[in-house]
């Protein structure tokens, strides 16, 4: 009986495979098959939460939130997957930021199908287009000093800034900071209940119309290699101890936590925080509860 070769995620990414190669990823405890274009991963990520909000900027739609402000300070990395074809503004996550824009802090998509990453201080720190109707991985990573965007423009005074990665590639060309002020130069914090699927605490709530998976916040600045591992050529992976072991401070697997009880089409009254820190998401109002959906095309799983 022959054995499969065993490599780390980084070692696999450095291989020059041919179609049909199969290996074991020791970081993920997963099997990977090269399909000629990318490694396909067999793992257990099998559920996502769709937020079927037909329109934005309105009332009584789907979202989940923590019971209180998680009280995290110094958040330096925010990572998530989303999939939407909507042409209305909506927020994937919210409840982050500083005193001036506490309701804005988070990630949103706008009616031009561009991403808004907002550090909660600036009122919007730029936009970048995404492909509607596909799974998009977005990750924002704060660096404390020496920030410069991908065009080489440095933050004034050698200050901090936010690297923005879309599908594993940096996209913060003149959107990672705004020259001449302090935007983006400090890490963020949770400042209200952390929400998934709508804007923060205000009346116009910009519900997200689409699907969301694997939302994670870290008080550490992940490396470019870490972000590449999370993106994993487009296949979500477990970021916790059984996977990449990146120790997120908040982590929503959206149905894949052992304490979640997903069923196709079933209503969601709670989502577990897989970080172990207890910041679980809930929705006690029936008409605001999203429904679980099995993955279709996101991950091959056994």
């Amino acid at each position: 009986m022959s054995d499969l070769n065993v490599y780390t995620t980084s070692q696999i990414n450095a291989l020059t495979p041919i179609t049909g190669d199969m290996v074991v990823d020791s970081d993920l405890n997963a099997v990977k098959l090269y399909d000629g274009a990318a490694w396909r991963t067999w793992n257990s990520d099998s559920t996502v939460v769709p937020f079927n909000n037909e329109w934005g900027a309105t009332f009584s739609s789907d979202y989940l939130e923590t019971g209180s402000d998680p009280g995290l300070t110094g958040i330096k990395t925010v990572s998530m997957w989303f999939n939407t074809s909507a042409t209305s503004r909506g927020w994937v996550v919210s409840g982050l930021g500083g005193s001036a824009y506490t309701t804005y802090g988070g990630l949103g998509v706008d009616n031009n199908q561009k991403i808004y990453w907002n550090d909660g201080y600036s009122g919007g720190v730029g936009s970048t287009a995404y492909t509607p109707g596909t799974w998009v991985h977005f990750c924002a990573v704060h660096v404390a000093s020496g920030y410069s965007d991908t065009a080489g423009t440095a933050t004034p005074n050698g200050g901090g800034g936010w690297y923005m990665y879309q599908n594993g590639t940096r996209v913060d060309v003149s959107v990672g900071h705004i020259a001449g002020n302090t935007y983006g130069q400090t890490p963020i914090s949770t400042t209200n209940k952390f929400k998934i699927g709508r804007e923060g605490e205000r009346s116009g709530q910009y519900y997200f119309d689409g699907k969301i998976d694997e939302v994670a916040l870290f008080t550490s600045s992940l490396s470019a290699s870490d972000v590449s591992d999370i993106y994993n050529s487009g296949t979500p992976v477990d970021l916790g101890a059984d996977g990449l072991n990146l120790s997120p401070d908040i982590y929503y697997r959206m149905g894949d936590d052992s304490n979640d009880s997903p069923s196709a089409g079933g209503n969601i009254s709670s989502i577990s925080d897989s970080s172990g820190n207890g910041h679980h998401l809930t929705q006690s109002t029936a008409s605001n509860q999203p429904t679980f959906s099995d993955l279709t095309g996101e991950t091959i799983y056994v």
Partner: protein
Amino acid sequence: MATKYKLLNTPEEFDAKEAEMRTLLAIPDSKGTTGYADSRMIDNPDHADYGMFIFPVVTEGKWKCDQHFSADELVDGDSSWAKPLEELA
């Protein structure tokens, strides 16, 4: 979830309808669901229905209740119900 809406004139009408739905849908349930809907008002002063209360009517899934309403009294969501917000930078 898929939702239609019924516009009500007063908060008392909203509360009565919400209580009716809780009874019909056996809320609270064992999963922590404690209410059917939160009261919200059309707050755009330029909208013709300004000041009316928006009652969501779920049309599929566990909380489906549109069968308890007449189809001709339900409307689709209208993004202009919300008071316009300032644009993000």
